[in-house]
């Protein structure tokens, strides 16, 4: 057991979770107090001792499923193999040929689908689990020895089960139960209920696939292919759809934390001038001797922010997250104005005003802002010169200008003089580039050309770096 634990802790560290020595000792100690055959209890014992942040729970869960997938009575893979192997174990030759016969299986495809449908409709978890196992062995077509994480197997299984149709069928059944008199609300609730059952089925299938993969490839190899970056380390430029969703979830608590931290910093940072009135008032308790001088709270000038963001395809996600973050802490600034461009430029401040929902506003930018001038390929030069013409006058010595983008200009003229002009008027000019430092200046990237006129150019590839920058800005 200790070996498994050591391997598990090693895997967590590989995945980026900070697990200290004391924590792994605690985990070892905790194992004495939970029944090892109880998988849930084991999971919570390890979770409580090893994982100290909810953002890391997902990574922990994945690793746990891999390392402890074969514990617990219902997961006894040997017994099951014995039961089923007669029917369908040679998947090598069957998997490719597809789902024609099922190799002398007792159930046909239709029967399997029917049983699954009934089990889901009645909410019978045990049967659903058994069906999930059946479905995996039949449809996934797993090939031993391939270094994969199982996503494709999952896709194959789900495609064959056709969950969407299943959902519609079950809804149909639920509807007919109430003689077709279902209010919109009831229908909605029924749908959510069935959806959650389907989610459970999906999870069963995932578990089953993972279990088989572990049996096939061994824990460590599989853990390596399943490893995913933590939300704060996801690269903006290359995030998949799931990762973007994870980012969106992560940005909410982040903005809240940031706002609290900045407000505190502002209050406690420096001491203001002597507050004579308050000092005298407090001196009364020491007989009129001003022992404890009181100071006014400082009122530091709040910077004005101009955000100029490239929202063309490759860097759109980055621009969105940065805008989100800047607006979430906009109370720290006296004014925030935002401009987006591709080859045309448009002011989008109006989308944020009067809306308390930043996400919604960012969404509206994507659909409503007028940012295309000629062909919809980034043209920094044109966008910047238009900006200077129309809004340049409004930059004052209190303004900080943020430029977001990869400065890939498609070999158009750079018009870098605009930046130099902006630099003369504004307090600070910063450039945030979502590309890795080593790519800067390669190909059509001209960030170097602009960079000379900026106070500083930052590499800003993930939430961690973005958060750091915004903290320093405010």
């Amino acid at each position, binding site marked *: 057991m200790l070996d498994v634990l050591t391997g598990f802790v090693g895997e967590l560290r590989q995945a980026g979770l900070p697990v200290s020595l004391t924590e792994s000792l605690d985990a070892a100690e905790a194992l004495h107090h*939970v029944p090892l055959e109880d998988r849930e209890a084991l999971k919570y014992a390890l979770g409580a001792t090893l994982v100290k942040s909810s953002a890391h729970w997902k990574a922990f869960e994945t690793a746990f499923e891999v390392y402890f997938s074969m514990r617990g009575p219902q997961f006894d893979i040997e017994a099951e193999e014995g039961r089923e192997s007669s029917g369908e174990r040679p998947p090598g030759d069957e998997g490719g040929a597809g789902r024609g016969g099922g190799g002398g299986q007792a159930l046909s495809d239709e029967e399997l689908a029917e049983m699954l449908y009934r089990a889901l409709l009645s909410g019978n978890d045990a049967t659903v689990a058994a069906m999930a196992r059946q479905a995996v062995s039949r449809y996934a077509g797993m090939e031993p020895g391939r270094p994969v994480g199982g996503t494709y197997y999952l896709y194959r299984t789900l495609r064959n089960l056709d969950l969407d149709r299943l959902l519609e069928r079950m809804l149909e059944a639920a509807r007919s139960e109430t003689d077709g008199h279902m209010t919109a609300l009831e229908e909605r609730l029924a749908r959510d209920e069935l959806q959650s059952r389907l989610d459970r089925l999906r999870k069963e299938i995932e578990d089953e696939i993972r279990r088989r993969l572990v049996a096939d490839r061994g824990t460590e190899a599989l853990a390596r292919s399943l490893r995913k970056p933590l939300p704060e380390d996801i690269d903006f430029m290359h995030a998949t759809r799931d990762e973007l969703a994870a980012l969106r979830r992560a940005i909410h608590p982040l903005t809240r934390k940031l706002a609290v931290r900045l407000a505190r910093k502002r209050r406690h940072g420096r001491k203001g001038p002597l507050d004579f009135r308050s000092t005298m008032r407090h001196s009364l308790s020491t007989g009129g001797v001003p022992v404890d001088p009181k100071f006014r709270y400082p009122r530091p000038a709040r910077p004005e922010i101009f955000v100029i963001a490239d929202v063309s395809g490759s860097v759109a996600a980055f621009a969105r997250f940065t805008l989100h973050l800047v607006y979430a802490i906009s109370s720290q600034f006296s004014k925030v104005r935002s401009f987006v461009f591709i080859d045309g430029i448009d002011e989008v401040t109006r989308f944020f005003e009067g809306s308390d929902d930043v996400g919604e506003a960012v969404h509206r930018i994507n659909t409503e802002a007028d940012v295309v001038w000629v062909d919809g390929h980034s043209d920094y030069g044109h966008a910047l010169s238009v900006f200077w013409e129309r809004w340049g006058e409004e930059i004052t010595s209190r303004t900080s200008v943020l430029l977001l983008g990869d400065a890939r200009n498609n070999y158009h003229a750079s018009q870098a003089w605009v930046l130099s002009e902006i630099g003369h008027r504004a307090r600070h000019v910063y450039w945030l580039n979502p590309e890795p430092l080593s790519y800067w200046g390669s190909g059509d990237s001209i960030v170097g050309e602009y960079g000379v006129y900026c106070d500083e150019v930052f590499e800003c590839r993930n939430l961690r770096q973005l958060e750091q920058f915004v903290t320093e800005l405010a």
Partner: protein
Amino acid sequence: MAEESQPPGPLGFPDPGPARFASVPEVRERLAETGYLADEGIAGVVHLADRLAKPVLVEGPAGTGKTELAKAVARATASRLIRLQCYEGLDESKALYEWNYKKQLLRIQAQRVVEETSEGVSEAKPTADSWHDIEGDIFSEEFLLARPLLEAIRASDPVVLLIDEVDRVELETEALLLEVLSEYQVSIPELGTVRANRIPLVFLTSNNTRELSEALKRRCLYLYLDYPTLEREREIVKTRVPAITDELADQVARIVRSLRTLELKKYPSVSETLDWARTLVVLGVESIDAEQAKATLHVLLKYRSDLERAAKELSAEDTQKGR
């Protein structure tokens, strides 16, 4: 102060003392008796906290029963609940202990009066002896004001210590807690070290408004309280609002779950679910339809944009709308 070593347990951990709970199912049972429905994870962590003599750091969205958990554990173990509410600017004298200097002053003055009356008008110069007496006297337990942390350590009866909203104190102040949390002792320079007779169960709650320090996290077990599952929420509603019918409780739980799948600014918390259930009971609602739901949604949701979105979703006519 010479550190006397803790009596090590079988594995080099401080001895947690006799078990408060025999097993995980027993934790659940006894918490349920006090009206707190724990799931497997919660009960497991509480059990571990008792056995490992470790504090529990409870995090999660507001209104999922973090503080309630500590209270329920106190009730279940028939312990006194000592609560330290954290806030910005909390310091040693509010959290650990403080010398009652007014009483100390009185004591010194009383001494002087005694000396003056006994020695007449002569200048009462404190001799070395009497100085020692007074010093020993005024820095004794009698003049010590115990604040929650010290009180929990000194208590002879069973206690549960709740350190509420620990994320509100500054990072530097967190260090105050560390000695108490890992060694269960408080060092007072003038008195020596006060050590716990019986290690108390400690719960820290955090709303996650800032990242807690590694040092603090390392010393704690971590429990993330998320919104409950449908079944558990239904049971909670039934337990806490006894007047509710089974059917209504089920509907309430299901609607709340549907709401939590939407993209809202603030999801309805368990306490808001309970408020809503009570509202419906008071209004005499037997089963909810969309209209009633819309009319009472403001109990559940506290943002205008959320209300609008939820109302739209709940009465959405088109059934094709997938999520």
